[in-house]
Structures are given as C-alpha cells and as structure tokens.
C-alpha cells in the first residue's frame, strides 16, 4: 500500500479495479488493523478520484477520418428515442 501508484496516474479502469480489490481485502478481514485503515484511506481516495473524473471530464473526440458535421447539442432529441 505504501508504494502504491498515485491515483491521478491511474486509468479509470485501473483505479476501479484496485478499488474492487481493496474492498474484497477489507471484507475478507485478513489485514492487520493498521493495514486496514491504510487500505480504507486508499479506497476513499480512489472513489473520490473516480467521481471527480466523471463529474469534471470533458468529452474528447478525435476525428481520424472524414469531417464531423452538424451540431452536438444535448438539447436536441435523440433520434432513436422518438
């Protein structure tokens, strides 16, 4: 836990996977109390980071071929939902 990677450097999937592992570890009750508290701290940091990413992310679109046209307005109705 001590040499864990900084949360910011991890991908969403990696952070999520580590979080899963931490929860399993804590639930299995195999850790020392000190390690449990460390794991808990790490888990909370991971959750906070994941939530932050979701709420602050700006969608990035890389147009590799062709030319994207038309508006990208969230207000217009989804054509497939009508």
């Amino acid at each position: 836990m001590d040499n864990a990677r900084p949360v910011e450097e991890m991908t969403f999937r990696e952070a999520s996977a580590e979080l899963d592992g931490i929860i399993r570890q804590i639930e299995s009750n195999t850790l020392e109390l000190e390690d449990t508290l460390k794991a808990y701290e790490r888990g909370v940091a991971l959750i906070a980071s994941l939530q932050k990413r979701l709420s602050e992310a700006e969608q990035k679109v890389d147009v590799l071929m062709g030319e994207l046209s038309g508006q990208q307005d969230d207000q217009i109705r989804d054509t497939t939902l009508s």
Partner: protein
Amino acid sequence: MVSRGCPTTGVSPTVTQNNIYESGENSASTALSVSAAMALAKRSLESVTVRMLGEVSEVSIKAGYKAAYFTVKDSSASLPCMMWNNRYRACGVQLTVGQMVELEGRFTLYAAKGRMNFDVFSITLAGEGNLRLKVANIAKKLQAEGLTDPARKRPLPLYPEKIGLVTSPRSAAVHDVLRTLRRRFPVATIYLAGVPVEGAQAPVGIIDGMRCVVNAGSQVVLVVRGGGSFEDMMPFNDENLARAIAACPVPVVTGIGHEVDTAIADMVSDFRASTPTAAAEAVSPSRESLDVLFQSQADALATGVRRIIAAQKAFVERASDRPAFRDPAFLFASEAQALDTSIERLNRAMPAVLEKNAIFIATARQRLVASGPHITEKPQAELSRNAARLDDLSPIKTLARGYSVTRDENGKIISSINQTEIGQRVIVSLADGRLDCKVGGIDEIDLFGRNKEINHG
C-alpha cells in the same frame, strides 16, 4: 419460399383442368344453379396457391375496411387484389402505386358480383427476395465457418477509455452516440472515423475506418448507422465487412438501423445493439449506476473497516477481561504465596532464635557482673602501694623533716654554693613558709664533712 399446404411453383393447369373435367362429367345431364356453378368455380380456383410479380397500379386502404384493396398489373393484364388487414399489417410493406411487388395468394370468386380477385397472403418488395437470398447464403457460409458462434463473442470492456466510432460523420447516428457517451461516460476519448455507410464503396470505407480507430488504440469499436430500408442496409451484409468485424482485435458493437432485421454485421459482432444509441449505452457505464456503485463501494469500505475495528475492540475487551489483566495479583500469586509462607516460617523461627540469644546475653551479663569486682582488685592494690610511695617521696615531707629549698630571686633552685655570692638575696622555702635572706658568707664542705670558710661578707 413459403408454402401454405399447396404447391407454390405457380398455377398447375393439369390439376385445374382435371377438376373441371370431373365437374363437367358429373353435371352433364343436370343444369346447375348459378350459385352452385360459382361455388364449383370458387373451389377450383382456391385449391392452388400462386406466386406472381406485378406493379401496383391502384391502392385503396381505408380505416373502416377489413382488408386492403389494390390492383397489380403488367403490360397486358391487371388483377384486383385484397389482403386482410391482419396479414397486411404483418407483411411490413407500405403499398404505393408504382411499386414492383411479389405476391403470394390464391384466386377467389366474389359470388355476389361474379367477380374474381386475388386473395393475398403475403407481399414482399420485388428484388428484395434475391437480395435476401444472397444475404442468407452469406450468413449460412459464415455460420458454417463458426464466425457467428456465440462462443466467439468477447465481453465488452467495462470502462473503455478509448472508444472507436465508425459511422457517417453527417448523420443523426454519430451525434446520438456522442451525446450518449458524453452523458454517461465523458471520461472516454472517442476516435471517430467518418465513412460512407451507403453504396457499393461503403463496406471498404467501414473496414478502413475500423482499422484506423483500432490503430489509434480503441478498446472497443462501434459500427453504427441510423435506420433505412433493407437495401440501405446492404453494406452491413457485406461478406468482407463481416470477416473484418470477426477478425477485429478488439470487441465490435453494431448498432445498425431501427429494424428488427439482423444484418450479417450484427451476427458476427461481439454485441448487437438495435440502435446507435443502444450501442453507445452498451459500451458505457451509466452515470446513475456508477454513482450507485461508488456509494455502495464507499459503504462497503466503511462497513468493512467498522466491522474490523469492532472485532479488534471485542478482542481487546475479551483479553482485558482475562484474570491476568483483571486481577494483576494473579500474575505473581504463587510468588506472593511463597513470600507469605516464608514470612510465616520466619515469624515462627524468630522467637526461638531470640530466646536463645537472650539466654546467651543473660548468661554473659551474669558472668560479666560476677567477674567485675575481681577486675579492680589488682589495680587497687597497686594504686595503694604507689600512693604510699608517692607520699614517702613528697618534698613536703622532706621539708617537714627540716630540710629547706633555696632559690634565687628568679625562683631558680640553688643547689651549689657556686651559684651564689655574698650579699645575694635568696629565698628559702621551709615546710610552713619562706624566708627572705641575704648571703652573709659561703662555706664549702669537703668530702669529709669539714667546713672550710671560703669567704665571708
């Protein structure tokens, strides 16, 4: 082709004529009523199912009618048709004048008017049949190769951070996908390959686009387009595209059209979504589910830690309840007991020891007391003897016997005549006082006791 209990390869003249002959022979002598004759004809007509191709020339579809009425024709004939509403709705074709249609049904007679028409069982748009056959053959081939095997289908990544999107860049579909991903999982980067999705070149373009987004690092690829006719969808039935999808190194999700029809691309893809939006949803976790997930994970963490702390606390409490901690004396009870025993033994032993000592001391004291007088006897005798001697030697005694001591003025004893001279003042001490004298003369005494006057003042 569908068969409805009768040969479907067209009108069978032999059968029909046989029926007529049979009827004719049976009724050679008797004239039939019109109704009977019409019933005879109706039975004959309805005994065969016919498939025909024609152009729609008139259409009459009205709300109150039980059937759709229309006419089909070719260059030299026309035929009134009717199709019961339930069948018409089921066939999925919207009839319009000028359409080439393939009909399946039977001839029938409307006896009241003596009119013949065609009772239509099913309609398909002409040409589509060939296409469908072609598609079905490709599907069969790919199926035989195992490319549509459900076991080949790969699970989609849970949190794809790089999503490839291959579709027309000028379509509602592209925005449906982008909007859905933005709403649900804005963390992901979208690699868009804008390609034509209609026409003969579409399959090649789509394959190119897939390669492009995969090379960019996409973890999953969406191949989508909006709704259209069966013919519009033909690029997605392309065999090469199907093989490219099957060979794609990352999972492919198809979202093609609104129709219930399944394109071949759908059959070989790892996940088939019914629409572009559904395809985007398939590769993205929803915000709501993530929020719920994070909350439950936070709860699980807290609960787990609380449980562990409670368990540790219970352990400490149990431990502190053990005799060793509850009553520290317990720890050295045996030592304390040993000490007590020792004290008791000591207490028991002490008086005896003391008594012995006391007796010893008492005896010693007695002996000391007893021997006390004997110790002073000898010194006392000595002291008496010495005192007597001392008394004997006392100058006072000598003086008392008539001797005197002469001193000069300084108190110095004069023991020789040589120490004095005539006229010198001397002090003579007697036993009871002193005389202040002046030397009037000096006589030396020789060894024989004779005085010899030396000098006289």
